[in-house]
């Protein structure tokens, strides 16, 4: 695929996304908004998993901190959504910086276990600090008040308004993460994934890079959390549970770990498939398990990886 095709494809997607906001009913808008939020979560996560090769079970905690940050700000300080998002993302970034500082000392299974432990410590705090977080009830009644920018007020209460609000963050995140992928920082991360010893010999401070990408992906998880708190108008403690961290993993794996656009495709397939499966069966988790097995055993490139492999074979006979 040459450059022009890529731009056409991107413009087409953007046009379709804007169009969806005009014509769709509330259900499709809700699903599309959820897909975009999941995309932000998964794209940020895949910087860590796909690009750097680190498996984290603690990102649900950063997602939840973003959500709780927004919720607490909106209940106690000010309901301005941008302020809430700013506080949510900052809190998530700071927390992931602190947790990452300890976690990046290890790799492989020890890294996964450390992120699990720290993530569950956050979950325990959210679960038990009832006076602040509402305990197992969570926090609810988060309103989508209009964004006041001095002279103009932009309402986001209606579904399509909020859809465009999320679309803005979505496009910005995709652009930013795409920049990160092709930046020297992003290339160094891929180098660390392929051979961290050689990367170290080449003069890269492997730990600092790992900490950097951990923090960045934590911040994106926080952004996704804040937006989802606005979408659902409530936050629940189980969003911090380790099993919620499996969601971006599944999404990235379905789409393709080693690709940039994998999580984008994966999110659409994940949410759409879940909606369809839930219509037919209560046991959608079973089918996701089977799908996951099939991908791990047969199609490790995911959807995007498999398609681009096929494309390459086809174009080079």
């Amino acid at each position: 695929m040459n450059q022009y095709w890529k731009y056409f494809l991107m413009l087409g997607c953007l046009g379709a996304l804007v169009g969806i906001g005009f014509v769709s009913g509330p259900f499709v808008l809700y699903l599309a908004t959820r897909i975009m939020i999941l995309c932000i979560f998964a794209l940020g996560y895949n910087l860590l998993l796909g690009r750097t090769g680190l498996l984290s079970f603690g990102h649900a905690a950063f997602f939840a901190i973003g959500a709780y940050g927004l919720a607490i700000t909106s209940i106690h300080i000010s309901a301005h959504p941008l302020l809430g998002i700013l506080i949510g993302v900052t809190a998530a970034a700071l927390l992931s910086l602190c947790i990452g500082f300890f976690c990046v000392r290890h790799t492989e299974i020890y890294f996964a276990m450390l992120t699990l432990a720290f993530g569950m410590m956050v979950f325990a705090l959210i679960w038990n600090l009832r006076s602040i977080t509402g305990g197992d009830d969570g926090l609810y009644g988060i309103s989508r008040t209009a964004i006041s920018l001095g002279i103009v007020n932009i309402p986001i209460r209606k579904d399509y308004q909020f859809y465009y609000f999320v679309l803005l963050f979505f496009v910005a995140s995709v652009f930013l993460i795409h920049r990160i992928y092709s930046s020297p920082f992003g290339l160094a991360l891929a180098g660390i994934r392929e051979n961290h010893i050689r990367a170290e010999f080449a003069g890269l401070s492997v730990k600092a890079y790992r900490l950097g990408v951990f923090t960045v992906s934590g911040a994106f998880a926080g952004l996704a959390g804040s937006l989802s708190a606005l979408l659902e108008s409530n936050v629940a403690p189980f969003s911090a549970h380790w099993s919620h961290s499996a969601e971006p993993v599944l999404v990235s794996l379905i789409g393709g770990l080693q690709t940039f656009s994998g999580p984008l495709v994966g999110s659409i397939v994940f949410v759409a498939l879940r909606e369809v499966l839930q219509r037919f069966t209560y046991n959608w988790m079973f089918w996701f398990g089977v799908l996951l097995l099939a991908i791990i055993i047969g199609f490790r490139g995911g959807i995007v990886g498999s398609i681009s492999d096929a494309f390459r074979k086809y174009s080079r006979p």
Partner: protein
Amino acid sequence: MLQSLVHVCLAGISAGMFIWLVASGLTLVFGVLRVLNFAHGSFYMLGAYLCFAVLKAMGGNFWLGLLLGPLVVSMVGYVMERYLLRLVYHLELPYQLLLTFAMVLIFDDLVKMIWGAGSIGSPAVPGLSGSVSIAGREFPVYNLFIIAVGPLVALGLYGLLEKTWWGRIVRASASDREMALSIGVNVPLLYSGVFMFGAWLSAVGGALAVPYVGLLTTGMGEAIIISAFIVVVIGGLGSLKGAFLGSLIVGLLSSFGTRFMPMLDMFLTFGLMAAVLLWRPQGFFAEG
């Protein structure tokens, strides 16, 4: 005060023994196969449900359930190792972990499909149903039985691994797979055997939990696998001695935690896990 201390200790030890039965298999499988199996908690759950099913079908004989349930689970373990895990040994860690995670999703929903999503009750065991008076308070006989079973299993494992020919082969393959292969050990078969044995241990734990927990839920596997993770981390991945002591620590910590500081109980347990990983990643009780 002394009374309640004794009872909190006993409750902690009996809870720790269930974690031990799961953690022993988990750490054994990790030590030999180098795979951390998320689905190990599902074997615990399957063991419990299958024991319950046998119990229902065979007119309430718990011991028959305890015998047959885990045997079926070890067959399931064989299928999983032979036809799934074996395909991913050469892959990177995320794929291995996620494969076992996929099995958790599948097992959970299979149990829901077969037995329904709700919790099911479980009966008392004839012969072990009463309670005895310890330090002036009643304590269930069954929990004492559990406290006895744990160390017996530990002794059995020690004997099996350290004193028998089979144990030597297992230890040899764990420490050097290539060498074991080259001197003619059938390592793939051994892997299957160890995995089946681990699954069996976990399922025995689950079956024993049927009268203990009183209610079976599909979440019981996920609950115990996290405790077992904490335990094997504290004890050192692959160390059985560490897993035994770790189980006691986690069991006691959570029973004292729920008794004296219910707010901090979960936080402290995971905090301990993180601290051990940071300062002694080879585990508290690992040699060397």
